[in-house]
């Protein structure tokens, strides 16, 4: 984009913009607004990519030499919970920033979607407790299931919600999360963690790249 200086904001009707200046101002303002209203900015997606790599990769390191499978070590789980807390905190801060002063039907729908996703996530762990109660083996209860089911359900529920809002980037990203999680289950209780680490890292990095491209996309120039 041509780096035309932004004309000063005045209260009068000074229509001194030529088309090039108008195009530059329109693109600059739109890009700034897109960044400020972004629920999931590119840097947050990069952080998510690093966290899934660290958390799932750490758990895989703690289980990959286990024979028989006993489950993730408490150290690896602690690191995973701390990293998850970091992402949740960063996501909440990004949401607060994006929604400050914003109201309306689309906002309400988004919050309803987030609430449904959180409930779905909690339900996944209730079912995990039911599996344990029913006597399922530790390879399932503490391996395959927690490695894949929570993010698979979260991804699929989130994708349905995002599709309802016609947010196609979020739909693609969340659907990919569900697909990667389902595919990871074929890795078994040990390698599922590794497939999740690499697969989700790739999904989040791809999301970051597409988000950055969308935010910079010009309205005027093809």
């Amino acid at each position, binding site marked *: *984009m*041509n*780096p035309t200086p*932004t*004309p*000063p*904001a*005045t*209260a009068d*009707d*000074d*229509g001194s*913009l*030529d*088309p*090039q200046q*108008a*195009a530059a*101002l*329109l693109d600059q*303002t*739109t890009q*700034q*607004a*897109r960044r*400020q*209203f972004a629920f999931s900015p590119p840097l947050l997606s990069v952080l998510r990519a690093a966290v899934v790599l660290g958390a799932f990769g750490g758990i895989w390191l703690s289980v990959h030499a286990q024979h028989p499978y006993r489950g993730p070590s408490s150290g690896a789980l602690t690191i995973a919970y701390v990293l998850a807390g970091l992402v949740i905190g960063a996501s909440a801060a990004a949401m607060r920033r994006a929604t*400050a*002063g*914003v*109201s*309306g*039907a*689309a*906002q309400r729908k988004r919050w309803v979607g987030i609430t449904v996703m959180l409930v779905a996530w909690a339900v996944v762990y209730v079912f995990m407790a039911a599996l344990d109660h029913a006597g399922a083996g530790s390879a399932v209860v503490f391996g395959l299931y927690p490695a894949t089911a929570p993010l698979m359900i979260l991804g699929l529920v989130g994708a349905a919600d995002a599709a309802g*809002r016609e947010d196609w980037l979020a739909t693609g990203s969340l659907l990919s999360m569900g697909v990667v999680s389902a595919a990871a289950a074929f890795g078994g209780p040990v390698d599922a963690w590794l497939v999740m680490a690499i697969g989700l890292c790739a999904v989040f990095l791809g999301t970051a790249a597409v988000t950055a491209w969308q935010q910079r996309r010009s*309205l*005027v*120039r093809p």
Partner: protein
Amino acid sequence: MTSDELDPLIHVPTRLKIVATLAALPDGDALSFTRLQDMIGLTPGNLIIHLRKLEEADYLSSEKTGNGAASRTTVALTSRGRAALDAYTKALRDLLGGVSLGPDDPERRRT
């Protein structure tokens, strides 16, 4: 096509910024006056003048809730305002399609 054919209501720096900012929100969402003011960087008086002109043309709607210090004003782009911005963007695109790019334009340097 000439620049005279661009919508004069939008073809003013401040109002172009207001409309472009509100258009970045999903359809049906509104923005508080104070956040819009922060984002545009205008004094309240100046912003009100421009908002009034856009509201008179039915390009945006405003709503005030509460009383006194707790009152809150929100503004949203109407479907007419969104259509006007779309038409303005298309007109700009058509205009620039026939204009050669300047020497500092990265699009030109790339070719």
